[in-house]
């Protein structure tokens, strides 16, 4: 079973995607806090991190920088995931080796899962 770490602060969306991924057979760790997410990433070594960009304490991009700097988890596949459609942020994410930058409202959970499967 593939492990997915979902870092998403909005509870309604976190529940939705956790639900959808679990139904698809993934082992899901859903956390709202970026620091907690970093800790779980190091502990569980997920196959993919689905990372929200607009997080409360820390920007998702900054967290991604931390992930890339940490030797334990630097090569983990990351998919950036946000309703913030900004070209600069997209470029930054791609620069930091994110597999994709998905706008949440443009896809149903099933469509997102199809994309995730292609990155695993």
């Amino acid at each position, binding site marked *: 079973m593939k492990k997915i770490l979902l870092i998403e602060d909005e509870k309604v969306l976190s529940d939705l*995607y956790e639900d959808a991924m679990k139904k698809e057979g993934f082992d899901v760790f859903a956390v709202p806090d970026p620091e907690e997410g970093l800790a779980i990433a190091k502990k569980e070594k997920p196959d993919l991190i689905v990372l929200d960009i607009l997080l409360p304490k820390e920007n998702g991009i900054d967290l991604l920088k931390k992930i890339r700097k940490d030797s334990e988890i630097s090569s983990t596949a990351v998919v950036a995931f946000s309703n913030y459609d900004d070209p600069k942020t997209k470029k930054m994410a791609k620069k930091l080796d994110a597999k994709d930058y998905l706008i949440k*409202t443009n896809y*149903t959970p099933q469509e997102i899962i199809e994309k995730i499967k292609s990155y695993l």
Partner: protein
Amino acid sequence: MEKKQKSKEEKIKKTECINKNCWLVKTLNYPPYKRCQYCDLKFRNCLFLHYQIISLVLIAVLFSFCFFFGGGNFKLISISIFTSVVAYGYFFNKSTDKIIEAYFAQRKAKEALEELTKNLEKKVEEQTKEIKNAYEKEVENKEKITKISEDLKQANEELTQLDKTKSEFLSIASHQLRTPLTAIKGYLSMVIEEKYGNVENSVKEKLKSVFLSNERMIKLVNDLLNISRIETGKIELEPEEVDIKEIISELIEDLNLSAKEKNLYLRYEDSQKSLKKIVADPSKIREIISNIIDNAIHYTEKGGITITTELKNSNMLIKIKDTGKGMSKEELSNLFKSFSRGTAGIQFNIAGAGLGLYAAKKFVEMHKGKIWAESEGKDRGSIFYIEIPA
């Protein structure tokens, strides 16, 4: 000699123009006379005149005495004295005249020099004043410039802050608006896909309508955010190689549901001559075509929408033809403005501002392309043209 000259000059000074009141000058009118250079009155140096007259009288008395009461020698002596006195008087007169002339000439020159000096001083004073004023003005200007540059610096800081605020507003607005819409979309699609258990078809159909309404809401928010970004200059093209056919095919798949809701066909007719790939921003091209198709679906009640692509002068030309309500000339001219709805919109009570078409136009222009529409009139359908350089 000098002392004598000086005393003579002093005497002359005392006599100038007082002469106008001198009774001797007035009564005697004694020729030869000289005109006063200052008051143009005939004058003779009055004092000298008095001396001369007094001495002449004395001499005349003496002469008369000698002549009439003296002996033979006395007559000769008195005549010679008298002659020499008259001669002396004549030459003395001449020399005093010369002194007077010289004095007045000197005085005139002195006065002219004084006048000149006064004028020069005045000029120097004026120019010094001017320089001082100019210097003070320059200092004032420098201070003004310093203030202006400080104001500019502050204005620049405020603009930078405003720009930052705009960016932050856009990020918050897009996040806040889109979050609930995403949740609705997500859970609805899960229920429709029967992830939470079976759903009756009739219920499914209703849920699909809700889903479509939500999609329209998402689209409206996207359009609003796009326009907000366009207007604040916060939108950029992300060009890459794009397969137009692929985009159109995907869009047809996405929008087929809403077309089928109204029993409309939505098809793509491929022309062999069209370019396989062009350099464009794929998400914006999607928006453009999707907005036009969406618009066509809303304004069409029967028949359907046909999309074709072809090459026109090495540009990609996309045609979206519908069998809908059509447009009048007035509606065509207002079409791509940010808020416009055709009369058909009001008639059908369709909600929505003309934002989609306005955003489409802006995106086409960002690609240096053209967008326009044609219609043969009411109920005769419309054709939208999008031309993008390859």
